[in-house]
């Protein structure tokens, strides 16, 4: 407090301060603030492309159309379903592996961590292209392996090209790609638990499970809540992988909201910018609501933890 007061009394070098902030403020205005406002504005007009003349205000017309559009509702459903499949899988699998890797007696820790991190380093575009080859029923090894495992029904299938299996397959690939990221979250969280607590539990005669249940779990809860928020926010924004892996197909089975927006704005021969902007606005709101709701839950957990 006294430090702040003394700073205020000394002359504040406004010129320098704003000069230092200028690059961030200018770029932030151009590429974050303006686009947020403009997306909302576009969504209220009849703009079809960037070169459209006579752009008119049409009120909520785009939104009304959007909620009658089966494909948009489908993209919401696909995004939600994808989230339900991948979030628990990535969350729990990475926790299990982190517990193994954080164990004092675990061998080759750095080696394993590096292996699990490789897909995180690899851009989704490459992951998409490589998995298209791996899963190709005519040349890919995955179908051969399925056949040798006796899963003949699956072996003849194009897992990415069949509407009923495409989303699940994309989910498995997504979890595979991002697991290494969660692993680092969990290991950092586990390492924040003081060593003395484990030793104290050992002296008290607690076994591994009891230690995990009554010492690790309560201390891990606030971290778990944050990791959940991050995982959900990653899952909602699954654009890159879907676009390269399936391009939203087959028959829109993997078309998430962002792919829907992209298709209407950039992939169509007759673009519908205003319509795509309405979808983008709803997507932004949907995203914010989920993040804020989870933040609220997180803070409850953190209070309970203290």
């Amino acid at each position, binding site marked *: 407090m006294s430090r702040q007061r003394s*700073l205020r009394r000394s002359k*504040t070098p406004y010129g*320098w*301060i704003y000069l*230092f*902030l200028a*690059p*961030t*403020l200018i*770029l932030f205005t*151009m*590429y*974050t603030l*303006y686009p*947020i406002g*403009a*997306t909302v504005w576009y969504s209220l007009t009849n703009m079809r492309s*960037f070169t459209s003349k006579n752009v008119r205000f049409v009120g909520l017309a785009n939104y009304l159309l959007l909620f009658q559009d089966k494909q948009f509702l489908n993209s919401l459903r696909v995004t939600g379903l994808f989230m339900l499949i991948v979030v628990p899988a990535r969350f729990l699998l990475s926790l299990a*592996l982190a517990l*193994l*890797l954080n164990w*004092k*007696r*675990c*061998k*080759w820790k750095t080696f394993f961590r590096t*292996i*699990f*991190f490789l897909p995180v380093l690899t*851009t989704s*575009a*490459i*992951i*998409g*292209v*490589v998995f298209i*080859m*791996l899963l190709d029923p005519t*040349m*890919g*090894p995955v179908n051969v*392996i399925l056949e040798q495992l006796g899963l003949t029904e699956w072996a003849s299938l194009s897992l990415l090209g069949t509407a009923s299996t495409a989303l699940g397959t994309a989910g498995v690939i997504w979890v*595979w790609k991002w697991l290494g990221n969660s692993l680092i*979250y969990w*290991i*950092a969280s586990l390492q924040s638990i003081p060593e003395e607590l484990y030793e104290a539990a050992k002296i008290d005669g607690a076994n591994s499970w009891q230690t995990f249940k009554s010492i690790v779990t309560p201390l891990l809860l606030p971290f778990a809540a*944050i990791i959940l928020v991050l995982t959900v*926010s990653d899952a909602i*924004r699954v654009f890159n992988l879907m676009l*390269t892996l399936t391009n939203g197909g087959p028959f829109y089975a993997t078309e998430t*909201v962002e792919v829907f*927006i*992209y298709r209407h*704005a*950039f992939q169509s021969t007759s673009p519908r910018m205003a319509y795509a902007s309405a979808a*983008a*606005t709803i*997507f932004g709101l949907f*995203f*914010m609501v989920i993040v804020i709701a989870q933040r609220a839950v997180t803070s409850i957990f953190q209070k309970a933890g203290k």
Partner: protein
Amino acid sequence: MSMKEKASIIQSKKGWKNPGVWISFFLLLLAAAAWIYPFVWMISGSFKSNLELLNKGLNLIPEALDFSAYHRAWVDAHFDTYFLNSVITTAATVLIVVIRCSLAGYVLAMYEFRGKTLIMTVLLVTFFVPTGTTLIPTVSLSSDLGLLNTRTGLILALAGGGQVASIFLYKGFFEQTPRELMEAAAIDGAGFLKIFTSVMLPLTGPITATTVVMTFMGAWNNFMLPLVFTFSNTSLRTLPVGMMVFSRGDTVDYAGQCAAAILSITPIVVLYVFCQKYFVSGIAGAIKS
């Protein structure tokens, strides 16, 4: 190496007798095999001929080492251009982000001034705005400014949007730096700029390294922005965009795609090998803020 670490190594050498150690090691090995397999397949595929690849074999050892896929990817599929574009775009993005975030983080940490609360609030609120929401106006603004289909436009969009985490990283660091350093330099007659460049900035080594690797990874792997920025100027395509275009070409060259993938990921894997620590601290930072 501390005594504690030495002790734990000695202890872990004995550890192999414990069945739990074996079981967990076996489980990890099994998982690691599933994680490494696509990469091994990719490397093996890049040395095979397309004919051999199409033969549906599980054999990971090529019949004969065939380097022609690399030549086809690098020259015929233009990955030489894509590679150079990725290098230039990423380097420029990293430079801009480090400069602008360290500057902003510094004044936000050190000074109280009119507008600070507003700036902080706006940064925090927009932290979670997805690219899908801002993409369309970003393209239209760039188009109006003549920046669409240009490298400058792509770099500005990559370096300009978001990066809030890096600002907070610098801000948090400068807040922990003793103010006495600043005051001592001021007494010695150093001005505002001099204090920042020769006293404060040199202290940020680890923070700058973390920002560099995280921004590098974000820019090198970015897909959405380079995709929409290079629709009408294919000579500016970066590696991820080039990869998608290559895979959807008229002639299918599987071995070439494997080689192109290896060429694209090598730089970032090398960076990871040398700067592992900063990748880890950058990612772990997300849960500590």
